[in-house]
């Protein structure tokens, strides 16, 4: 009898049943080997908890790995939101953005980003009490049967249209929704002999020039990115300002 139970323990140990030693994914609902590594980089030793109220909305798979739609919605959290950090665990450049939402506006934002492979995607939301609330999503990068090979990246259109902004305001209840597209190559620096060249700062300002909401962007944000913001209050005009890492500034009244 004892021999049987010994054998069972031995077999269980070999088959990789989780044990206390499996620290790197500590508590991560997605059990990602990169969780602990990225947590140390982005959250350091600050308190955090996984929180299902932080929505990280993604399609189940990346049809085009250079244009994966992402919505981060932290509006279910009470109180002022200080900052939101988004990253993709298994990207070679993990961080997608830092975001400081406008006070009093719905903390919801959409954009498109690049994935290198199937990966967990995180949004860590800092509330006023100093706690990070972490939401997670997962996108499979297997694609579909007829997935087209990417060809657009070599399109030189941007050279003569850099920083052009097309967009529109939509009425959404008492809020204004702004959607806009900025022409920019958003080069990651990971492609042979093409240095990184990307939009680095984005600000939404009111008519007097005060900053309502701002973002720091990173190279995983898609080429010619499309952003969606919701701003409370309809008194305009709002202005959009962007700057890239080459120092070029782009501005438009929305």
């Amino acid at each position: 009898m004892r021999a049987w139970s010994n054998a069972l323990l031995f077999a269980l140990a070999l088959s990789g049943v989780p044990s206390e030693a499996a620290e790197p994914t500590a508590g991560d609902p997605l059990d990602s080997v990169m969780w602990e590594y990225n947590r140390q980089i982005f959250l350091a030793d600050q308190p955090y908890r996984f929180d299902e109220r932080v929505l990280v909305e993604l399609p189940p798979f990346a049809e085009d790995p250079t244009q994966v739609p992402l919505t981060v919605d932290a509006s279910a959290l009470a109180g002022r939101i200080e900052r939101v950090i988004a990253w993709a665990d298994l990207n070679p450049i993990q961080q997608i953005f830092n975001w400081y939402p406008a006070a009093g506006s719905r903390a919801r934002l959409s954009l498109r980003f690049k994935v290198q492979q199937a990966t967990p995607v995180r949004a860590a939301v800092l509330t006023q009490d100093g706690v990070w609330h972490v939401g997670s999503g997962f996108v499979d990068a297997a694609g579909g049967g007829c997935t087209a090979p990417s060809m657009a990246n070599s399109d030189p259109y941007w050279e003569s249209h850099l920083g052009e902004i097309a967009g529109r305001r939509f009425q959404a209840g008492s809020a204004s929704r702004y959607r806009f597209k900025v022409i920019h190559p958003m080069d990651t620096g990971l492609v042979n002999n093409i240095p990184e060249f990307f939009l680095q700062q984005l600000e939404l300002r009111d008519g007097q020039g005060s900053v309502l909401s701002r973002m720091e962007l990173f190279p995983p944000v898609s080429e010619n990115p499309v952003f969606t913001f919701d701003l409370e209050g309809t008194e305009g005009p709002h202005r959009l300002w962007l700057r890239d890492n080459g120092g070029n500034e782009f501005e438009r009244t929305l």
Partner: protein
Amino acid sequence: MLHSHFSRIFKAFALLILMLPGQSWAAPLSYDLKPQLIAEDTYLLQGRLEDFSRGNGGNIVNTAFIVTRDGVVVFDTGPSFRYGKAMRQAIAQVTDQPVLHVFNSHHHPDHFLGNQAFADGTIWALPDTGRLMAEQGGAFSDNMYRLVGDWMRATEMQLPNRPLQVDRLQVGEHRLRFFPMTGHTGADLVMLDETTGVLFAGDMVFYQRALTTPQTPGLAVWLRDLDAIAAIPHRLLVPGHGPAVPDGSAIGQMGDYLRWLDLTLRSAAERGMSMTELMKIPFDARFAEVALRRHEFIRTVAHLYPRYEEAVFQKQ
């Protein structure tokens, strides 16, 4: 004593290994193609209403052949060399006639990667289809290896060897007519056998399986082509995916779905929806029976929504 202890541990361990779930010893991969007589001299090999997987080996596509008194005409060759060979065996079960003419409806991998098994015949395709295969076939082939695995073994792209620049061809007693279209991929062949009235629509028509849009020039173009297809007199329509139908139900469903897609994408752009919001919207009840509708809708939003956004955004 010690010996028997180890021996018992070993037996217990061996038993546990045998009981582990998911252990399977590879069965030989077989497409098990069964030709279905759908009209005089005309056979359909109907694929499953599924996405590519290691379970189905990519057999999600319809292929067909016509046995004439001079030889066999093949319409599309399937997703792999293995499929092409299985198709030839299926043909050989029905007739001793040689394969004379092979037609590729368009450049998507499930329709032409079986060409290798027909390299001894004349393989026809629209000139633009041949060009698109040469440009994108390698990437498609790589993707198929990734999606269906070992079923693809030894598959290499075999390009068509004859550009289709005629609109009629007589093979034995069968009079074939060709209609070049563009709605699905930019180069799409529709073939009518005037002798039997069978219309081989390729992927210009999907039925009971959601259509795919990665290379469509636009839904409006596809809708115009669909009107042209509806105007071709025929007795039986063979879609690229889904069952063959004697009436207008396949064309009707396609038209409804294309119009619904166009309207849905347009109104979403006008209301300012983001892609993630749009990907989740409820489906029209008319399409409740259409396989893979959510999967393909998500793909279609990725392919086409940027064009609809552009249309409502104001430029500087």
